[in-house]
């Protein structure tokens, strides 16, 4: 086995797909006929009707013992890249060179037959992944131990819990000892202790010299195993470099996509028409840093007078969880709206929000509880652009920065000072 050398080289890789199923059949047959009769087709660069580049001009190299994380939104071309590298799809442009055995953790439990026992399926699955009978027999005990399926080894896998099924599939795949391992999203399944074991195994493989290409949406996971990152944006390489910068570049990319114009609310006599972010000096601003004051100017348009109006603002984390809500009525902020409308400012003091993009939803109500005048979602997004979390995120991970400190009991007397 080569160690230390280049394992994977991808050059100017491109792959086209077709939106229409019928056309894709036709193009496939045309390409096949052309490729067979004329050898290498001269032009596969041009796009035909309904075709698009799923992946374009992507290039990188991977050496033994390196782990590259591939990030990108859904449809960015991550899975296409893995399928091209594993040789399932054929590129339309560019070139891939892969050295040695390629293992894949893409389809967990590939070829498992539900009626067969775990024991039988280990042999089928192992053979699909390129292991010989003797090799499987040699690793059999280790596989079973890793999978932790215990007494279920000789039960049909259809009686397995989904966790056991995945564990067994992973256990076999993790024992292939490949030179290049392709991992697609599978680390997201299973319970925590199993996931941790998966990571340990992936890291072990890497230390033994396996090059790894891993796709995941979970940045904390990626940061644990990868040193380098490739960020894909609609099929093209947006960034290639260190994992830390890659993670933040990917987050920023997501922010750009998410921040759109405020959705137009339904036609109501009193409406929230716009909300914009301002800094403490009242100047418009789109991005803030953790701990800064954030001002939110809310414009209300009204054709009727509304007495004792209530404005409720909800703040949502990047993952979509409600972090908090703010009501003008709760703060005893008297709000009487008269035509043509009003502007109200909400100030979040020293907002303890961490890197990410936060959604803002609002509703405008009259005095009575059921008197809802307008409700708008994602009227604006608050973008926190810094500071970046540490390499593994521990401590300043997720959405909220709590004011906190560490101390030794007794350092400052018996209790602790506020």
């Amino acid at each position: 086995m080569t160690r230390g050398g280049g394992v994977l080289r991808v050059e100017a890789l491109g792959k086209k797909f077709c939106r229409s199923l019928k056309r894709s059949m036709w193009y496939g047959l045309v390409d096949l006929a052309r490729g067979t009769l004329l050898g290498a087709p001269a032009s596969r660069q041009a796009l035909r009707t309904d075709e698009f580049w799923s992946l374009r001009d992507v290039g990188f190299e991977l050496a033994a013992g390196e782990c590259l994380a591939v990030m990108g939104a859904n449809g960015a071309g991550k899975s296409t890249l893995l399928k091209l590298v594993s040789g399932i799809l054929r590129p339309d442009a560019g070139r891939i060179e892969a050295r040695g055995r390629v293992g894949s953790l893409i389809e967990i439990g590939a070829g498992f037959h539900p009626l067969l026992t775990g024991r039988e399926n280990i042999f089928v699955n192992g053979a699909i992944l390129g292991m010989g009978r003797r090799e499987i027999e040699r690793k059999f005990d280790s596989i079973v131990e890793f999978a932790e399926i215990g007494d279920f080894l000789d039960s049909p896998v259809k009686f397995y819990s989904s966790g056991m099924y995945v564990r067994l599939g992973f256990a076999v795949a993790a024992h292939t000892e490949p030179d290049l391992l392709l991992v697609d999203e599978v680390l997201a399944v299973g319970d925590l202790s199993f996931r941790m074991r998966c990571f340990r195994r992936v890291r072990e493989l890497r230390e033994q010299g396996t090059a790894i290409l891993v796709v995941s949406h979970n940045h904390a996971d990626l940061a644990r195993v990868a040193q380098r990152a490739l960020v894909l944006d609609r099929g093209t390489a947006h960034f290639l470099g260190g994992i830390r910068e890659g993670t933040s570049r990917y987050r920023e990319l997501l922010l750009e996509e998410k921040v759109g114009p405020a959705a137009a609310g339904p036609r109501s006599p009193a409406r929230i028409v716009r909300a914009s972010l301002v800094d403490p000096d009242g100047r418009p601003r789109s991005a803030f840093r953790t701990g800064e004051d954030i001002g939110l100017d809310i414009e209300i348009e009204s054709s009727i007078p509304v007495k004792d109006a209530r404005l409720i603002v909800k703040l949502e984390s990047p993952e979509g969880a409600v972090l908090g809500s703010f009501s003008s009525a709760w703060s005893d902020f008297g709000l009487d709206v008269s035509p043509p409308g009003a502007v109200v400012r909400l100030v979040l003091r020293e907002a303890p929000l961490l890197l990410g993009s936060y959604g803002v939803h609002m509703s405008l109500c009259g005095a009575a509880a059921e008197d809802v005048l307008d409700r708008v979602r994602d009227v604006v997004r608050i973008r926190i652009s810094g500071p970046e979390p540490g390499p593994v995120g521990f401590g300043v991970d997720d959405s909220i920065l709590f004011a906190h400190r560490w101390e030794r009991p007794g350092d400052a007397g018996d209790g602790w000072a506020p």
Partner: protein
Amino acid sequence: MAQPAVELRVYDHAQPHDSFAQMGRELWESRELVWRFLVRDISARYRQSLLGWAWAILPAIATTLVFSWLRSQRVFAMGDLAIPYPAYVLLGMVSWQIFQGGLGAAAQSLTQAGNLVAKVRFPHESLVLAAIGGALFDAAVRAVLVGIVFAAYGIVPAPTAALLPLVWLPLLLLVAGLGFGLALANGLVRDVSNALSVALGLFFFLVPVVIAAPAGWLTDLNPVASIIVAAHDVVVVGHLTRPLAFAGACAVSLVVLPAGWWTFRAAESLVAERI
């Protein structure tokens, strides 16, 4: 420990033109996978079933009973046979099972594997060959039934019956060649497997299984019919009655197999993309 030689694989947009030697080598390397698939399919097939293995022969027995009854009612006429009609039908059904069962299973092999083909790289031929192997297994079970029926009738097979596997070899090559093509076609257009079962239903009456071999070119130009006749000949007659037709069938199978296989290799990525 990995394989001794470090393999370099290159993928680009050029159509792969693997030589038959290369294809053969890769196929040989995947023999274990074929075997695993075969064992998996056969052992899983009857696992959640009451009658189990009986299903390998029940259809053949039913067909034999139906046609024996039809014949006794003179629905169709048939000349004199060297052996009793039920034994004749059952013997023919063994060859037919290799052909019909093999093609049917092969046609669905890729589509049935679904995600496996779309997401994991392995030699896809193994799926097709394992499917044909499954049909071959059923045929072997039926051959045992034929032996029992022959014994019951007190028929002594000709000594040439030992050559039966040799007679079936061209049939297997033919089934493999056509099976590759059908698996591919069904991966692209799902109509294929439906059309196939209709076509095989009609084709059944063009081969000498329940009927006698149609005389002349209708049999001689039909490689499947020629092989079924030859199988009957080596078991019952003791020599080939239509040697030229059998030689023709061998020649056809030697063309169909490489053609089907090569097409399969050239176009399999199209299927993986669209499955």
